[in-house]
């Protein structure tokens, strides 16, 4: 029987970082293949777009990387790193919306 759990209880890494000055890449890494396998279908480009309130066209890449049990989404930065009005030069604190994700596991 599946139960609803918070991502923060089951993920080993949830992070954001620049991938070059114009992209922000979001990584969710699971500690084991089973959790990863079951999470895969639930963390989707639609969900990422909704959490960040961006159109799906702003998602540059969405990748499931089996060797690391990782789900990765790369989005277009609203502003380039260090541009006027930009608020996170390294992009290292843009992951918080992911922390609220809940999964059926």
């Amino acid at each position, binding site marked *: 029987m599946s139960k609803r759990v918070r991502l923060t209880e089951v993920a*080993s*890494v949830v992070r954001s*970082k*620049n*991938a*070059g*000055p*114009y*992209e922000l*890449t979001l*990584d969710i*890494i699971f*500690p084991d293949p089973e959790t990863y396998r079951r999470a895969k279908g639930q963390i989707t480009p639609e969900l990422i777009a909704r*959490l*960040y*309130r*961006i159109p799906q066209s702003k998602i*540059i*890449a969405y*990748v499931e*990387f089996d*060797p*690391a*049990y*990782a789900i*990765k989404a*790369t989005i*277009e*930065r*609203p*502003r*380039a*790193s*260090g*541009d*006027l*009005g*930009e*608020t*996170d*030069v*390294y992009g290292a*604190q*843009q992951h*918080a*919306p992911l922390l609220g994700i809940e999964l059926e596991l």
Partner: protein
Amino acid sequence: MREMRVLSPTAILGYGFPLASFEAGMARNPHVLAVDAGSTDPGPYYLGAGVSFTDRFAVKRDLELMLRAGRERKIPVIIGTAGGSGAKPHLEWNLEIIREIAREQGLKFRLAVIGSDLDKDFLLKELENGKLKVLPPGKPLERQDIEASTYIVGQMGVEPIIKALDSGAEVILAGRAYDPTVFAALAIKAGYDRGLALHMGKILECASIAALPGSGSDCMLGTLREDHFLLEPLNPERKCTTTSVAAHTLYEKTNPYSLPGPGGVIDLHQARFEQVSERVVKVSGSRFIPGDMYTVKIEGAKPIGFRTVSIAGARDPIFISNIDSILQGVRARVTDNFSHIPPESYYLQFHIYGRNGVMGDLEPDPVVKGHEVGIVIEAVAPAQDQANTICSFARSTLLHYGYPGRLSTAGNLAFLYSPSDFKAGAVFRFSIHHLVEVDDPCAPFPMELLEIQGGEL
């Protein structure tokens, strides 16, 4: 079975490493000592201003240990993206540190200095020839982006570094270099598989960040063989696990299956990560796929004005609940008071920490929930004096701004410091992040050989 051992002491030259880890690495008889000295992560200022984001004293400490060890063992020491951004002033800054170390330590060696500055006329010509390619989501390049940039560098591949090794260089100081190149060049020169060598370099460039627990200031050893490589942290308190290494392959990349670089792509669709002992991970299956054209990534930054900031906090709930209309009012006062300065000629921003100070436009919940907010007033204008004026006036207006329901008539802001305003100097933005096609991978990167004799030429 032949192998090549590559020691990466630290993630960025100047980030440091424990001596015990470094000595453990040297005890493994590495064939080369290599370090990445730069990044674009710290933003456009450092490239644009020609300034290093790493500290001189810390860089000298790391480099002195590396140069002494390298000369003692007669193995090459290779430094990539000198001075943090790799443009001419960054190279000169790092070269001066090398000369100082050589002078103090009495070291003699042949030094190759490889420039990475690209000539503006060359780029303008290549722009006309359609040889400059956009990297989405960036925008197509315009003449003005090239003309206005202070420094423009290209990311060299392994070829210029191999050329320096072929010239008998014992120490190589490279300008902007694709991060894995300094770790992969000697191996590729010796005929090892390019895909494995570059993938190993991609992991080694962050030293022990790929270990568990991760650290950007601890040493990692890479051992490259014909059909795989091994990764081993040199601090016994760390280990590499298949997930720590695989996870690092994701780091700062758009797509971990396909990592583009100079001249082609590292393809990881067939990559395998295996735990061969408690602390060592084996990687195989990484492939290099050459591109149709040899492309080099180019980076530039251009000045856009001067910045002044003022830092304050607010604790009054009535003020906080009115903050949007108050800031709107302050902005209107600034515009009105300096009606001779067109508002579009300067940038005035109020960053509200405790609301959306960190995520800006991406913040899904831009509402103040705490009992206090942090406020950073930022002004950017064509001259420092103008930025000072705008910031100062916005700050004093906000301090004494009268709003409906106000009880705290003595002032709205708690200033952290006296002085309250800080001149942040020149402001830059990334102007170029594109690809240029080249016929000869060495042509844009001129090499100069110097005989360093205890620091004297």
